[in-house]
């Protein structure tokens, strides 16, 4: 009996020592340049661009990037998002975490991580949470300049011949402050240009019908709208899942398509136009000028030259490339999150920006490291 007690005590002691020991060992391991970057993106079902960009970075920096995904059902599964981010911080070698897109739960996860590791660097591309919430928490946020696009999109639509402008969205997106601001600016700009603004509420892809419900609505609604309003109508939608059916239907009905919610040559266009070799190891993968040319050929062949446009680089992928570069530079002390020029340089030098010109970068408000980015447009003609 006594033997058993002694044995149990000894075992508990061994367990405790090994636990404490393993904890200590990892802390000592710290050294110059021996660090990793955590990277979180969606899976391919939410946005293929981001996942592929992350995959390529994992190959480019072997052993230095830990890639995780957030749940497909991210609106409902915040707890999983938080756990995933916190799990990255549980690895003491990870000094910075890059998240694209910053889905709900990101701010809560940053709080949880910083409670134990106040020095962790967080870089967010496309924050879903409110700027007021994310600005005090993240070191850098990079976001498409949606308020500015409220002006540039209707202007380009007008230049491409649109007499009317159709905006598809739903209440959840319209409760996102930058998207709501963009819509208000679009209404204003359309009024100035003499373009009629039409708002149509589509089903929320996070609602009971899911992404297929939204896509079906888009497929059915665009021909109806074009029949009522004529062909000179520019179609715009705020959700990624809408893009592929939208481009297909705009091409079929002869309407105008200025750019996607997240502008990129690879977002919606290849699938809608039947362009092969864009994904994975395909012949066109990562080669933006070649992809743009392939889309142009298809658009012109369909007799829709000058009615389609997009940005020349996939902006979310650029955010991931620039974010990882910035994260490494900040950890090594070579960059400062508050330096706008360094952020702009990281974006301009991202490999996917080759041939896409310069980005315009500005702060959302003075003093905030929340950077808004705009690229020029590429019209297929």
């Amino acid at each position, binding site marked *: 009996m006594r033997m058993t007690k002694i044995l149990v005590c000894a075992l508990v002691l061994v367990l*405790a020592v090994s*636990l*404490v020991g393993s*904890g200590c060992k990892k802390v000592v391991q710290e050294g110059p340049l021996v660090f990793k970057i955590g990277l979180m993106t969606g*899976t*391919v079902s939410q946005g293929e661009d981001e*996942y592929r960009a*992350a995959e390529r970075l994992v190959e480019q920096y072997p052993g230095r990037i830990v*890639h*995780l*995904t*957030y*749940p*497909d*059902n991210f*609106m*409902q*599964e*915040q*707890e*999983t998002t*938080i*756990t*995933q981010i*916190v*799990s990255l911080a*549980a*690895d003491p070698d990870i000094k910075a975490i890059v998240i694209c897109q910053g889905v*709900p*739960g990101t*701010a*809560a996860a940053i*709080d949880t991580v910083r409670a134990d590791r106040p020095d962790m660097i967080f870089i967010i591309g496309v924050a*879903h*949470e*409110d700027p*007021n*919430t994310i600005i005090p928490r993240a070191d850098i946020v990079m976001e498409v300049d949606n308020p500015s696009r409220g002006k540039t999109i209707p202007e380009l639509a007008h230049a491409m011949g649109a007499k009317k402008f159709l905006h598809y969205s739903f*209440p*959840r997106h*319209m*409760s*996102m*402050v930058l998207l*709501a*601001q963009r819509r*208000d600016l679009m209404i204003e700009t359309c009024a100035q240009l003499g373009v009629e603004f039409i708002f149509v509420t589509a089903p929320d892809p*996070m609602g*009971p019908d899911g992404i297929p419900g939204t896509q079906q609505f888009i497929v059915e609604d665009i021909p109806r709208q074009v029949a009522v309003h004529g062909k000179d109508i520019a179609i715009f939608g705020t959700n990624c899942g809408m893009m592929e059916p939208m481009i297909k239907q705009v091409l079929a009905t002869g309407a105008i398509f200025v750019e996607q919610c997240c502008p990129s040559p690879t977002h919606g266009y290849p699938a809608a136009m039947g362009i092969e070799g864009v994904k994975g190891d395909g012949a066109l993968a990562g080669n933006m000028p070649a992809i743009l040319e392939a889309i142009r050929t298809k658009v012109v062949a369909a007799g829709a030259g000058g009615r389609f446009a997009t940005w020349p680089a996939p902006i979310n992928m650029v955010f991931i490339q620039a974010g990882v570069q910035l994260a490494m530079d900040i950890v090594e002390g070579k960059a400062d999150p508050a330096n706008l020029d360094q952020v702009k340089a990281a974006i301009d030098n991202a490999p996917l920006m080759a041939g896409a010109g310069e980005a315009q970068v500005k702060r959302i408000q003075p003093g905030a490291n929340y950077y808004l980015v705009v690229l020029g447009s590429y019209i297929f003609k």
Partner: protein
Amino acid sequence: MALSRQPAARRIQSDVLGIVRQNAVPLLFLALGLAGVLATGMNPYFLANETINRLARNSFLVLSLLIPVTAGLGLNFGIVLGAMAGQAALIAVTHWRIPGLSGLGLALALCTPLAVGLGWFAGMILNRAKGREMITSMILGFFMNGVYQLVFLFLVGTAIPMRNPAMLLTQGVGLRNTQDLELIRWSLDRLVYWRVSGFSFPVLTLLAGAALCAVLMFLARTKLGQDFRAVGQDMHVAEVAGINVDRTRIIAVIISTTLAAWGQVIFLQNIGTLNTYNSHEQVGMFAIAALLVGGATVARATVANALVGTFLFHLLFIVSPFAGQRLLGQPQVGEYFRVFVAYGVIAVALGLHAWQKRQQVLRALARDKLAAAEVSGD
């Protein structure tokens, strides 16, 4: 008599088999969870802290489901209504900028009348839909979600005079999609926060869950608790015995909704940000899944089911993405694996319950037949 003639070893074997059969669902989850832990080789501190944290913030919500099950209303998907009441109170407290424990206390106080009202409303409707309570409560949740969106997206800033640029959208109507609950964040969790050699315990939050367990167990022994059971077993018999069935059922829903409101406040003080239009949506589904994983059925659920279920369900949710990634080498496969395992096993849980019920019925039938044969033999 037949039993006593069995050799001891066989009796033990059949006892073990019986226990396994009765607890098939939690055991299956335990096996999956343990396999996941072994497959990931996860940092034990991370795993333990994350599990404790999730247990602390979720147990209250799962426990709020118990009383309606006892009272025969099945799994109350309507706890979403309570969650909405909790969130409305938190929005008010954030607007008035009341920090810390006093903010949390006020939120708990404010959400109570709201939750009681909503619970009464839900109870009235469920009384008109006897036998179809689960689907009715689920649809009721969708309906109230619409009302919630109407209130906070369109009435705030118009009919409800609220001027707070930090919380409202720039046009002054409707709340922003994220509300920062910084003022009350961790107000309960970190009030008494033990850190013991790398493990962290939010003591008061865990105690709140424990206190609720005690209250629920005490309630089961009171007259009201017995009424719940009587109504749950047979409404007609209860009615004949002089119990006001409709009233008892409404009380059950009111208690459940109110506990859910408090549970949501506790959950959100832990998370620290409110996802204005979505935080409540997952509440019903995940709490119910956790309860089922603990071995509960639509007709029988105990405190132990709730606690074991919360632990196992969240353990699996934590390890499965990493297990998928480790085993199959691709991060997104981890996510698909998690969804597949988590939701797949919920389906298995429901299937196993149906199978167990069938086995019970078959055994009862066999017993009856045997008894009838013995009677006729005599």
